[in-house]
């Protein structure tokens, strides 16, 4: 009904009718897809910033933005215009090239993941056979940008922030990777389409309840740590390091870091939703008596399922962020190497046994 895959097919066929040349149509479609992803990326960032500001305000007994538009909904647009118009301050004693390249690396790292994400039935850029692996690989590229930014700024605070960030992201990448690997055992494939199709009857979190739940929680913690937010915001701990690795950045360069941070939150939630909560699959009960219930669930469009799940997870992440105080660097690493990592390794084994038995 409200599915978008028919619409996309219609665009494809009408373009083909209109032009006729296969390669021209493909070229036009590549550009269209690129523009669509870019605007999705920007719009999502605006929405996320607004949502975060409002939710954070409600947690803190405040009102949040109220002035620009009804309930302040145009606040993030005003912010965007402001940040685009701001002067980019050039700092003499930095490593100019690396200083300028770093924000792009960070934003490319997070933007490229969008190519493989599946937003709904038939709504994805590329369908890799190693989609999950690709997403993990490309989203951890950001740490390179952060390290370079911290180093190139030639500032002691940014350097400490960058080193913290490096230590944190590299460590938490392990648990995040292992917990996703745990789910790959169930799916038997790294292809995101296969992973989502495999959850048509029941989401993976219900298919192997115990190990999947453990993996889910670990992934949420580790993923949250990778976004540098909440109790894990040490790289930019503003009360310690002023602003961490992006202290020296201004204007849209700073905006890139800011954008990447918000979109990383979305990406982590999207991967969690895809691997554990069935991606765009509606909620189904795998039983004969529930056929009509499943039918009702199918009426909700798949992209709504996807974004609903993702925003529920994002809300969880905001909740955590605005409740907990910050960890200390040694506690942070201890949590990863002494607690999360052993648990996820054992969990991997448990999942293998589980899949073997059931």
């Amino acid at each position, binding site marked *: 009904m409200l599915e978008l895959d028919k619409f996309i097919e219609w665009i494809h066929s009408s373009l083909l009718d209109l032009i006729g040349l296969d390669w021209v149509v493909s070229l036009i479609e590549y550009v269209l897809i690129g523009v669509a992803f870019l605007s999705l990326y920007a719009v999502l960032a605006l929405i996320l910033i607004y949502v975060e500001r409002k939710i954070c305000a409600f*947690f*803190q*007994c*405040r009102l949040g933005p109220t002035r620009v538009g009804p309930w302040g909904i145009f606040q993030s647009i005003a912010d965007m215009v402001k940040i685009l118009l701001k002067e980019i301050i050039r700092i003499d004693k930095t490593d100019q090239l690396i200083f300028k390249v770093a924000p792009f690396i960070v934003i490319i790292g997070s933007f490229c993941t969008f190519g493989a994400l599946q937003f709904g039935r038939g709504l994805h850029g590329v369908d890799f056979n190693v989609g999950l692996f690709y997403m993990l690989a490309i989203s951890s590229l950001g740490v390179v940008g952060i390290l370079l930014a911290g180093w190139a700024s030639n500032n*002691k*605070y940014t350097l*400490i922030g960058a080193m*913290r960030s490096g230590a944190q992201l590299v460590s938490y990448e392990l648990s995040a990777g292992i917990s996703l690997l745990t789910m790959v055992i169930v799916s038997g494939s790294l292809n995101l389409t296969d992973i989502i199709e495999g959850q048509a009857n029941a989401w993976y979190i219900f298919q192997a309840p115990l190990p999947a739940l453990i993996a889910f929680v670990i992934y949420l913690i580790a993923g949250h740590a990778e976004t540098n937010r909440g*109790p894990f*915001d*040490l790289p930019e*701990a*503003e*009360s*310690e390091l*002023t602003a961490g690795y992006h202290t020296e950045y201004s204007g849209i360069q700073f905006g890139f870091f800011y954008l990447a941070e918000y979109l990383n939150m979305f990406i982590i939630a999207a991967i969690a939703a895809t691997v554990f909560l069935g991606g765009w699959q509606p909620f189904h009960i795998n039983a004969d008596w529930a056929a009509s219930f499943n039918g009702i669930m199918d009426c909700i469009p798949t992209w709504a399922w996807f974004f609903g799940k993702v925003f529920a997870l994002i809300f969880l992440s905001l909740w955590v962020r*605005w*409740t*907990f*105080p*910050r*960890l*200390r*660097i*040694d*506690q942070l690493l201890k949590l990863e190497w002494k607690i999360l990592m052993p648990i996820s390794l054992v969990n991997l084994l448990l999942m293998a046994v589980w899949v073997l038995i059931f």
Partner: protein
Amino acid sequence: MENLEKIILSLAPDAKIEENTQRFTATIAPEKLRKVAEGLKAKGFDYLMCLTGMDYKDSLGVIYHIAPSNDEANVIVLKTSTPDRENPNLPTVSDLWEIAYFYEREVYDFYGIIFTNHPDMRRLFLREDWKGFPFRKDYDANPALNPIPEKVPSVESFENVPTYSIDKDGKLVKKEYPLFSKDEYVVNFGPQHPSTHGVLHLRISLEGEIIKHIDPHFGYIHRGVEKMCESMTYPQMLYLTERLDYLCGTMNRHALCACIEKAAGIEVPARAQYVRTIIDELTRIASHLIGWACMCNDMGSITAFIYGMRDREKIMDIYEETAGGRLMVNYYVIGGLAADIHPNFQNRVKEFIPYMRKMIKEYHVLFTGNPIAYGRMKNIGILSKEKAVALGVTGPSGRASGWACDVRKIEPYAAYDKVNFEEVLHKEGGTFDRYMIRLEEIEQSLRIIEQLIDNIPEGDFKAKVPAIVKIPAGEYYQRVENARGDFSIYINSTGDKNPYRVKFRSPCLSLITALCPLCDKEKIADLIMISGSMDYVIPCVDR
């Protein structure tokens, strides 16, 4: 009193004991100072309350207020002076009482008195290249002498630490040593930094995330309040006190009012005393709320910060209604209060008490019980009782180390002798104790207010005070417990309408002094948390 006399005379038989003074005062020759100081320290006088520099015109002197930490009411005032105005020097006592380390630097800064064998004779507040010593009575304040520098002096220029000693011939010898070695990773923490609670500048030598050494720089907002007071009349001085520690303005003002009232023999009406006590306790709650909130913010919990500010707002509203001011309440005057309380005052305070009790429960649920918060605070930054006494760490931070140093109990003023309250003491002196003690003290303050609010006596709110307040010649020392500790005022009067010398004993200076040993070998994140738990306010240090 006789006992103190005996102690002093046994240490220095030629000491001159002054008659008719508020506190036991003895003048000794500078050569005897070390011997008397060592003797007093050995006799249990381990708390150097205050160290004041003085210019007697014909000589430069220092006044020491010393007391035993377990019996603080027994204060010995020790005076010494040197007639040499060119190269004045006195022996240091910083090896006996650690807090003297900063106090003596302050005296050097303002009076130019060199303390021999002091490890670090840099200026404390003024720039290193400042000409002249501003608190001397013959100081030339001509701006041409000390122009605003065109180039900002590099921080490194302050890192050659001079020390002085006296050689065999009795000559003053100067030695210099560098504070940091060349390859140390030194981070400038402040003066513009989100969590230094004001314009504090710490130079921190780091090894990775671990702190090796801290060197605090003060003076970024030094206004010379003590010097300004010397040219003001007593009622004018009142307005400066609230600008010291702006979070406990009313208590600072209370200290000065009480000091002048006692000196001038003004009887303050009971109504004013009761209201002062209530307002002081409200200020204490407001200040502890900010202390708690900022500490949570330092640990990265912004939500808790906003909660604290929200509840403090209720107190600010009560002030606004009664006094007109919020942060600078300007409500106490010499002899009583500026105006009677607002008819709503009692009702609003009575509404506030149960509200606050409910909120404290929420704070405990939100933050105290949080495993991350507890995990960060426990066993970090432990200040032993001995160290707290040596460093003069009073107030909640001192009580968290188990030192019963509440001036409200030791020397009750206003209506504190009419109320029941508990002096909250903890034993360990860790960051968690300093965190908890503030929330517990809020409860005690609520208890005090509860006992007084319904019993405010009828009558005048202000005693009759002459238009020009003069206090008889002499020395006066008034102690008040403000939210950060022992805030005292020393006034030396010649009987004129303005004082000869005023000294504010800042509790915050010793809190920062304590920061340096506490953060040794801790991580940089803990420095922020510990400084949050110390809850200092910089304008109080930079008087």
